[in-house]
């Protein structure tokens, strides 16, 4: 009896220990992280200092010090690319010294801004996720940039139109695009050839995508032809725009994503998913879908432009990049990410200093440099022809092709000061219900849109 109890306890104790020891038991290829954006970027050497305080910069006599909050983890290639640019700026003798404070991810960054706004100690400028900017503008926290942006040496008209729409609120300019990315479609040329498809003609519409995926499935029933972490507002909004729909009515007072266009947009995905042509994953699976594509489990993956670095390094087959297929209006790539803002309560000379910094950062050469190092889109059309970008195009032609496509097919996202409260809160669970096959598209979207419209009133 006693030894029996001992064995029982031993087994349970082992079970408990297995739970503790799991990190070593899990395979190294498993995607560990849920953060959507920078996870797939190549890992770089960690650096220690979260804030940039260059000591070697030659200081001009009257240097204005400004603090800029920047949502990035304290290690990794993005942070290094930003640090390098800030250091260069501080050394450029513009009479401005920037202290960059890293604030984690976009969510943490915004929570800190809310706390700072309440306590009246906001920084001078910040990078903010673009959906959060209207909330700040609506409560008069931001400096309108309309006059400053007219300065001749800023060359406002050169900013990529695809990235600019989310900078406005109530017809005023509040933000300058900076750290932006979009969903693209990566595909396996070898699998296309094997299935008798032309690898130079990736599907541009969902009709073409359906035909192509049917051929791919017929060729190899073990492959799910297409995948993507698309069960969320970001990917759905692009899909909706490509069907000539929109999340919100023009006046922003009611939700229109349950329009016939909206139902058609989501039904295409659901039907392809039912027919095993498309595997739809949640937004937590950004990393997993890339690994599956690299492992040859899928022929096409809809994934952030960011992931091309990982694919470039690891794919053992001939791959290529294209726009995500679209509906009746053709492909639409909507760029998410962060924009620069200047806070309204900051002293005028500091606002001016922050503007000097933004102007310098978004020059064709500097946005090209950040784009090459980080994988984000360049914010100026002319940056695509900057010498550094042209050189880079020789090394990595597919990256530059992807950037060109992103700016060509780019459209802005909806603008609302209550985006999360009125749209995402109701739309995302409805999309997940529909795409997992547990709800009817029309019923679920109608119910969600009604709640959205109530919240918008």
């Amino acid at each position, binding site marked *: 009896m*006693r030894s029996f*109890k*001992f064995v029982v*306890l031993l087994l349970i104790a082992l079970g408990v220990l297995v739970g*503790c020891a799991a*990190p070593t*038991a899990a395979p190294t290829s498993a995607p560990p992280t849920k953060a959507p954006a920078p996870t797939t970027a190549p890992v770089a050497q960690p650096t220690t200092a979260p804030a940039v305080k260059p000591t070697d910069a030659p200081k001009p006599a009257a240097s204005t010090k400004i603090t800029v909050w920047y949502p990035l983890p304290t290690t990794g290639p993005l942070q290094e690319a930003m640090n390098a640019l800030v250091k260069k700026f501080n050394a450029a003798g513009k009479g401005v010294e920037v202290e960059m404070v890293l604030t984690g991810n976009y969510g943490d960054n915004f929570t800190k801004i809310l706390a700072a706004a309440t306590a009246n100690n906001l920084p001078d400028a910040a990078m903010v996720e673009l959906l959060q900017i209207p909330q700040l503008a609506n409560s008069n926290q931001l400096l309108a940039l309309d006059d400053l942006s007219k300065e001749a040496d800023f060359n406002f008209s050169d900013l990529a139109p695809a990235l600019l729409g989310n900078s406005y609120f109530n017809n005023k300019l509040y933000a300058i695009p900076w750290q932006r990315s979009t969903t693209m479609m990566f595909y396996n040329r070898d699998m296309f050839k094997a299935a008798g498809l032309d690898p130079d003609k990736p599907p541009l519409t969902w009709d073409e995508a359906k035909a192509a995926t049917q051929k791919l499935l017929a060729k190899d029933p073990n492959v799910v032809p297409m995948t993507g972490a698309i069960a969320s507002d970001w990917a759905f909004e692009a899909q909706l725009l490509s069907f000539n729909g929109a999340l919100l009515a023009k006046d922003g007072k009611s939700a229109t994503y349950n329009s016939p266009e909206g139902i058609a947009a989501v039904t295409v995905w659901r039907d392809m998913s039912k027919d095993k042509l498309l595997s739809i994953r949640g937004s937590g699976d950004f990393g997993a879908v890339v690994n599956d594509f690299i492992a040859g489990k899928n022929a096409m993956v809809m994934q952030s432009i960011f992931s091309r670095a990982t694919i470039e390094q690891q794919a053992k087959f001939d791959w290529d990049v294209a726009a995500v297929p679209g509906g009746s209006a053709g492909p639409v790539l909507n760029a998410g990410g962060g924009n620069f803002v200047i806070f309204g309560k900051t002293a005028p000379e500091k606002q001016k200093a922050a503007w000097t910094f933004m102007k310098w950062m978004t020059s064709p050469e500097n946005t090209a440099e950040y784009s090459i190092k980080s994988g984000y889109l360049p914010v100026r059309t002319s940056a695509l022809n900057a010498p550094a970008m042209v050189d880079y195009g020789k090394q990595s032609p597919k990256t530059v092709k992807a950037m060109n496509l992103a700016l060509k097919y780019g459209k802005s996202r909806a603008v609302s000061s209550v985006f999360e409260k009125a749209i995402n809160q109701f739309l995302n669970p409805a999309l997940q219900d529909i795409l997992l096959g547990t709800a009817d598209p029309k019923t679920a979207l109608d119910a969600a849109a009604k709640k959205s419209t109530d919240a918008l009133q």
Partner: protein
Amino acid sequence: MKSTFTFNKLREPLTAYAFLFPSLIGLVVFILYPLVTSFYLSFQRWDMLSDARFIGLRNYQKLFDDTDLHKILGNTAVYTISVVLITLVLALLLALLLNQQLRGRIIFRTTFFLPVVMSLTAVSAVWLWIYDPEFGLANWLLKLAGLPTSKWMNSPQSALTAIIVMMIWQTLGYNIIIFLAGLTNIRRDLYEAASLDGAGTWATVWNITMPLLSPTLVFLIITSTIQAFRVFDPIFVMSGGLGGPANSTATVVFYLYRQAFYNLDAGYASAIAFLVVAIAMAFTALQLYLSRRWVTYE
């Protein structure tokens, strides 16, 4: 002379307050002030950026109209009842085993207690790996046993169960330790008397151990229930801050957080906070009332 007299009279309470002062600061700054502010905010509309506006009982009225909240209260109830019930039964059985003279008893006790001292955030991140549908340990074990695999965190049908299993694993050790402490307090002579009277193992457990352990059980039921009802960390970490597929793992405190920091509706979030307080208080009162009928205090 008179002043010295009053000073002496005041001396004792003053000394007491001086000693209490450090913890009083903490209490006032981190508990009392936020509590009062939150109550005040529950009657306001405030987005944390503009000025707050008084809207009477509208936030409380919304508690009744918000169908998402009702679904989420359901999730929370399922989570709380499952975690508390299963953990208590398992912990009691294991504590009874561990209370006997067994080889390696200390090692077992330490092993079961290990998950308790680990950071819940880190544990959640690790369990996400275990639950990975492709490479995870959980599905590997299921396959090994010839059982159907699960999508775990990726499906609305299994996501909440996955978190429940993890939390049972995590809280088991704490419950065992408290039960063991309760068991140690039971007088040995009662067992001796029972064995002299010829009572078997089962009769002893049922007639001596259980009644004398009942105060411990009540303590654990109340504290575990309140704790489970307030669950946040694993929900936030394991759903990537989203509440799981189709809100399937959203619980009431997570919903509160989302109302405040995603939706910028601090007033409604405060009203939800007071709903949580009301439910927890009602439950505790009920427990204490019912426990009078079945708890034996020695």
